[in-house]
């Protein structure tokens, strides 16, 4: 029962995040909403295992939690540099001297 209530709450949250993804005036709103919907889906997948009585399948939630990050980073990098292959954006620029 408690799993069912939690599932409903998470589904509502997914719905609201998706509504923001459709409405979102800027592309940033959409990225944020999709990231949040992804988090909600990780929660949903975790609770679903308990709801269905076989909680052995948390691997899927774990996978998604790890891989969602890759997707978001790719989108942000695409935004900033217009390319996925640019070398070492993490390093400080060489021209800048402290």
């Amino acid at each position, binding site marked *: 029962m408690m799993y069912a209530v939690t599932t409903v709450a998470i589904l509502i949250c997914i719905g609201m995040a998706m509504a923001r993804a459709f409405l979102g005036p800027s592309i940033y709103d959409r990225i944020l909403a999709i990231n949040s919907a992804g988090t909600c889906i990780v929660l949903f997948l975790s609770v679903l295992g308990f709801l*269905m009585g*076989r909680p*052995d399948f948390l691997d899927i939630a774990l996978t998604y939690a790890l891989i969602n990050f890759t997707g978001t980073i790719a989108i942000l990098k695409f935004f900033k540099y217009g390319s996925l292959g640019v070398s070492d954006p993490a390093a400080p620029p060489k021209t800048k001297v402290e």
Partner: protein
Amino acid sequence: MFTALFNYWVVIVLMMAGLYIVMASGHLVKKIIGLNIFQTSVFILFISMGKVAGGTAPILKDGISVFSNPLPHVLILTAIVVGVATTALGLAIAVRIYEEYGTVEEDDIAEMDNHDQDLDIAEYQRIESGK
């Protein structure tokens, strides 16, 4: 009736939405997105057919006797990975087209092709008449 066939109806709507994107959109990458949606609808169709009411995932465990059908799962599991590989192939073709034509809009490409063809015909006619 409604609940019993709802999955299949959604599959049909998704399939048609994918087909619509492929037909209506002129952008090649958007067309590939449409193909992806179409393909996913087929996946959902197969998995829906494999579901058995009251069954659980086909992983053996003590005390569980009703399982869903594992065969569609196997077919679709491999199909997803093949699907992403073929999507990459389609995108590679789109990229090469862009590098040749400078655009991936279907109409522009067709126009450039027709223009080339017209030039070829004019050239041919010129040679013919000259002879």
